[in-house]
């Protein structure tokens, strides 16, 4: 065991963890919007809209995240047309490519989580709203969405942790996130176990914090108060 290396690499890995957290938070926020839109589309009665939303979540859940990042980072750069538009400003940056891929990926999973949450809302609650003369729009925003968010908290907590692990793939498109820096230190020192313990410890700590925050929110918003 090389404790000196562990102590020396800790600050480097910690500053890399900030990039991991940045990637995670931005893609989660964008992904939540995408997920909400597609969950609503899934509940649409029009079969084409419905099938389109299903197709989106099927494709993004059925293929590895690595393929999705590579298609966006390496693949889209090949299209001549895109290079001439303003989108190229975004697509030439590995940081934004990674975020687009993560957001689309977590959006697909989030849409499934929210859809099942919407479907488990008891019809009686919506009927109660209707009989009080509340408009459909307000029932949706003030009744269905808050209940769906509460219902989906445990599953969404898992998704956050899965996404945090997913951000490690940003290192494959040259971003120096926690895993990227860990790999760099391993490949220059050839001490994989020491670096794994420190980097893995930081990841575990983040998992632990996320897990407890979700647990706290679940308690706070539980119905049985």
């Amino acid at each position, binding site marked *: 065991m090389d404790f000196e290396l562990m102590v020396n690499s800790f600050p480097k890995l910690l500053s890399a963890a900030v990039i991991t957290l940045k990637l995670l938070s931005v893609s989660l926020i964008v992904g939540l919007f995408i997920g909400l839109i597609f969950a609503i589309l899934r509940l649409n009665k029009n079969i084409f809209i419905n099938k389109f939303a299903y197709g989106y979540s*099927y*494709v993004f859940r*059925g*293929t*590895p*995240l*690595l*393929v*999705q990042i*590579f*298609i966006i980072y*390496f*693949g*889209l*750069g*090949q*299209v001549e047309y895109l290079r001439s538009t303003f989108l190229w400003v975004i697509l030439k940056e590995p940081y934004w490519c990674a975020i687009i891929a993560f957001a689309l990926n977590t959006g697909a999973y989030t849409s499934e989580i929210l859809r099942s949450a919407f479907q488990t809302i008891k019809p009686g609650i919506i009927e109660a709203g209707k009989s009080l003369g509340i408009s459909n729009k307000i029932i949706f925003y003030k009744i269905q969405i808050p209940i769906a968010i509460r219902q989906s908290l445990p599953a969404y907590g898992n998704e956050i*942790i899965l996404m*945090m*692990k*997913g*951000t*490690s*793939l940003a*290192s*494959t498109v040259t971003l120096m996130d926690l*895993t990227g820096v*860990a*790999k760099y230190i*391993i*490949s220059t020192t*050839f001490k*994989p*176990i020491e670096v*794994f313990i420190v*980097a*893995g410890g930081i*990841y*575990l700590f983040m*998992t*632990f914090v996320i897990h407890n925050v979700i647990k706290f929110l679940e308690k706070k918003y539980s119905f049985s108060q």
Partner: protein
Amino acid sequence: MELLAFGDTGWGDELFRATLMTIAVSITAMIIGFSFAAVFTPLKLSKYKSLNLIGNIYTTVIRGVPELLVIYLFFFGGSGAIMFVASIFGYNEYIEINAFITGSFAIGIISGAYSTEVFRGAIRSIDKGQFEAAKVLGFSKFKQFYKITLPQMLRLAIPNLSNVWQITLKDTSLISVTGLVEIMRQSYIAAGSTRDPLFFYSFAAVLYLLLTFLSMKLINKLEVKYSRGY
């Protein structure tokens, strides 16, 4: 379509072989995962606190750390660890283990953590009366496991195991970083030499979709088989 031709002119046969490699790695990893689950599930269900702790550390660490980091640990640390063990037995030559074994082992350990959770949940949800009945009928421990626990556990576990299979299948794409030529690595090579990454990575996505789709069909059949009588 020329790019996908079989033979020297296209990448069809290479990608076909790469797909078989992905399937081979996934199945090997799944089997390695099951053997890990066979060790750690009893530990997690044991009545001794210290054994529980060992089981919990395994599943928590593996499920809380990115797959890529575990793969790097095995990729860079694998041959070192094997050489250390070999040196105890007096073998001091350089040993290089191949990418297939390292890769399936790394993915296997990850898949094992998920399988352990699935098996633990399945055994927990078997009615306690079943075990008491087995005891009353004088079944031996082995017979009780083989005739009572296993069939009921499988019925409950198969739907969740199909999730584990999907995760494992998708995780194999990460082994491409170690140079094992599976779908992702082959697409990377093809994309590099033809300068057509969009086509090859999209084709890789289609191959993965096909694999997940076909395996779901197969697993659904298994599910029907194991839930007969319910």
